[in-house]
C-alpha cells in the first residue's frame, strides 16, 4: 500500500487530496500508467507529465524513481513559492 497525494490543479483534476492505493507498480512512471488506465480524471491529470513534478517520501524526485519501500508519492505542478 502506498499513499498518493496531490496538490494544486492536480488535486482539483483528480478530485481528492490523498488516497491509499494497492499497486504493483515498480516505479513512479508505472504508477502513473496504472492510474491513467484506471479512470478518465487520472488520464486528464497525467496527460502531460512534463507539466508535473513528483516527490517521493517528501523529497523531490524523478519519474523513474523506484517505489520499493516508499510510503508516500506526491504529484504537483512546478512550485510557485516566494
Amino acid at each position, binding site marked *: 500500500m502506498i499513499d498518493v497525494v496531490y496538490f494544486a490543479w492536480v488535486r482539483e483534476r483528480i478530485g481528492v487530496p490523498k488516497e491509499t492505493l494497492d499497486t504493483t507498480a515498480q516505479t513512479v512512471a508505472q504508477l502513473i500508467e496504472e492510474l491513467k488506465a484506471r479512470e478518465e480524471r487520472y488520464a486528464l491529470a497525467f496527460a502531460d507529465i512534463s507539466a508535473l513534478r513528483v516527490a517521493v517520501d517528501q523529497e523531490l524526485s524523478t519519474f523513474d524513481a523506484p517505489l520499493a519501500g516508499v510510503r508516500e508519492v506526491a504529484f504537483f505542478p512546478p*512550485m510557485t513559492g516566494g
Partner: protein
Amino acid sequence: MSVRVQSDPFDPGQELSQFSQLVTGAGAIVTFTGVVRDEDGSLDHMLIEHYPAMTGPAIEAIETQAVSRWDLQASLVIHRYGTLAPGDHIMMVATVSRHRANAFSAAEFLMDYLKSRAPFWKKEFTADGASWVAAKDKDEDALKRW
C-alpha cells in the same frame, strides 16, 4: 537557522528587531519581504497551498546550503500559506554575516530556491474567476547561476 511556515500574518519590522537581538558581532543583516502583487488591479485575493510534510524539511535543506556556502551567522525564513490579500506580506528572508556581500548573495540564493523548490502553489482569484499561477521559465533559469 530558523524556518516558520504559518497562515498568520507577520510584521517584518518586528521580526527584524527580534532577529537582530539574537545576533551579536554581525556586520551585516539583509532582509527581503515578499508582498502580494496586484498586477492590474484585478486581484481580489490569493490562496497559497503547500505540502505540510515536505515544506519545513525542504526549506531547511535550502537554508542549510545557504548557511554553509556563505558562512552565515544566522538565517530566518518565514513563509505564509492560506488566504492573502494584495499588499499582504507573503514571506520574509533574513541573513546575517560578517560582511554584506555574503548576506546579500545568501538572501538572493534563498529567494531563488524558495521560488522553485519549496512546495507552495499560488491560486489567484479575480472577478473573472480563479487560476493557478504558472511557474516561470526565468525562475527555473535563475537557479543555474548558483
